[in-house]
């Protein structure tokens, strides 16, 4: 069951049109990759700040004179700002608690392992470590941040990238690519991810990361589109929860959509299952690494 899920995920990611486009459009380009210098991967609990803030209130400033009023106002602003910051930190800390069962795995999951799993030797992308510059071709300087949904059923990567040509310090492309995995359908998500020393957590993180990099490869050198497509509201799944993004559709295939959101980010999102999947979407993946 679990193995089937991994294969299905790999198949879905392999079906993404962006990957195919990358293979055809950038077949002759030499790509290399750099990742942050930090040892540990940035992994967080998915957070929602909808309930942040203190709500409306009323404050009287019983201070004598204009100077007193200004001091009272500044004090009030400083106090509120501090409280808001503290509240946001608490919300993020609460969100991160879902990672507690995976802490041991995440503590020894390095960027090096991520790169090796996502881009093995024959993948056509060379990992250069941190801050290295390639002699030729294109460098993707990548800063991925991973999130686990609060129901622990799915992973998300926000991969902020800059693409440099060899010898240049000016990026030819900069963007953030978000890839959202489809929720796993298992009895116990924590057990699923943690099995075999967190093997599945590592594999799926690498699959998402690779998908995000392949999207970059497909779009970094593509001519910029001047006529933005029609914006519409997309419903997709973040874990088992309905999520909403205002975006423009780039492509849709095998139950996933690649969209450009209002920030200009590229997002690969799992759509709600509707009609039956096409045969090529259910076929086992050709590249098990995905």
């Amino acid at each position, binding site marked *: 069951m679990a193995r089937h899920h991994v294969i299905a995920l790999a198949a879905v990611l392999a079906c993404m049109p962006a990957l195919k486009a990358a293979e055809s459009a950038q077949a002759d380009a030499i790509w290399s990759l750099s990742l942050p210098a930090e040892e540990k991967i940035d992994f967080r609990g998915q957070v929602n700040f909808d309930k942040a803030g*203190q*709500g409306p209130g009323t404050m009287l400033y019983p201070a004598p004179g204009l100077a007193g009023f200004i001091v009272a106002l500044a004090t009030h602003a400083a106090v509120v700002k501090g409280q808001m910051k503290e509240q946001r930190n608490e919300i993020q800390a609460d969100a991160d608690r879902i990672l507690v069962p995976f802490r041991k795995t995440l503590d020894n999951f390095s960027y090096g392992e991520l790169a090796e799993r996502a881009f093995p030797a024959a993948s056509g992308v060379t990992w250069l470590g941190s801050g290295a510059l390639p002699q030729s071709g294109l460098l993707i300087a990548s800063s991925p941040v991973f999130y686990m949904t609060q129901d622990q059923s799915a992973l998300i990567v926000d991969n902020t990238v800059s693409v440099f040509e060899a010898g240049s310090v000016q990026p030819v492309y900069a963007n953030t690519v978000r890839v959202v995995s489809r929720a796993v359908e298992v009895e116990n998500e924590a057990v699923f991810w943690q099995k075999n020393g967190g093997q599945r957590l590592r594999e799926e993180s690498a699959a998402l990361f690779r998908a995000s990099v392949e999207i970059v490869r497909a779009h970094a050198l593509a001519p910029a589109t001047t006529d933005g497509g029609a914006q519409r509201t997309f419903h997709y799944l973040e874990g088992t929860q309905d999520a*909403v993004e205002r975006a423009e559709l780039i492509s849709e295939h095998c139950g996933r959509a690649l969209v450009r*959101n*209002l920030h200009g980010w590229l997002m690969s999102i799992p759509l709600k299952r509707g009609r039956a999947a096409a045969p090529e979407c259910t076929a086992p993946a050709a590249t098990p690494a995905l």
Partner: protein
Amino acid sequence: MRFRMGLLVAVAGAWLTGCATPPQAPISMAYRPFAEPGLRIGVAMSKLPTVNTSFPGAEWPLCHAAAALANAQLTAHARTLPADDLVGLKDDIAAVLKLKGQVPVVIDEPIVVDQLPKAGSMVRNATPRDYSSLQSKYRLDKLLVVDLTEVGITRAYSSYIPTGEPKGVVRGTFYMVDFTDHSYEWYVPVLQQKSARGNWDEAPAYPGLSNAYFQAIEGARAAILLPLAR
């Protein structure tokens, strides 16, 4: 003297509280409200409010002026945001009702609830306004009303100081009037407030906050469409 003062306070209190109309409590949708097929259900909407910003907590004129000035660029942007997905809500409701075997009657013109005559019914959950004119005009068994009062972006204040980040907001009520006794069969106050993911302060286009606004719209749509479809 003390007695007179106490009496005055008591009378003033009774007078003021007597004037206040208690807010309608939410009413859950009845079990299988559409069990009887073929009911003519009107679908009406009040005039959609202009998409705008609001600053609750900054009501005093000077506070409001300061908040409006500090958020002028955000207000200018908010006024450019489309509300098409709310405009089409009546048709979406009608489609759901049709799937439930009912006969939806979409009332094209916006209704102005405050201009309807006051109702005098004493039944439980009676509507304060009389919707009989719509009942007779469209030959309705029930009437479903979408009454939105706020659409846009809101930022809470405590006098001059913001107490939170701006959020996309949709506020209003959805209710269904049963014309057998002119009472609410379903009454749902809706308040959807959605935060931007990450930094909100991205003038002039405010993409994160704009997305939160569209999320609030979808949240409001779901609040009415999902219970109806259940």
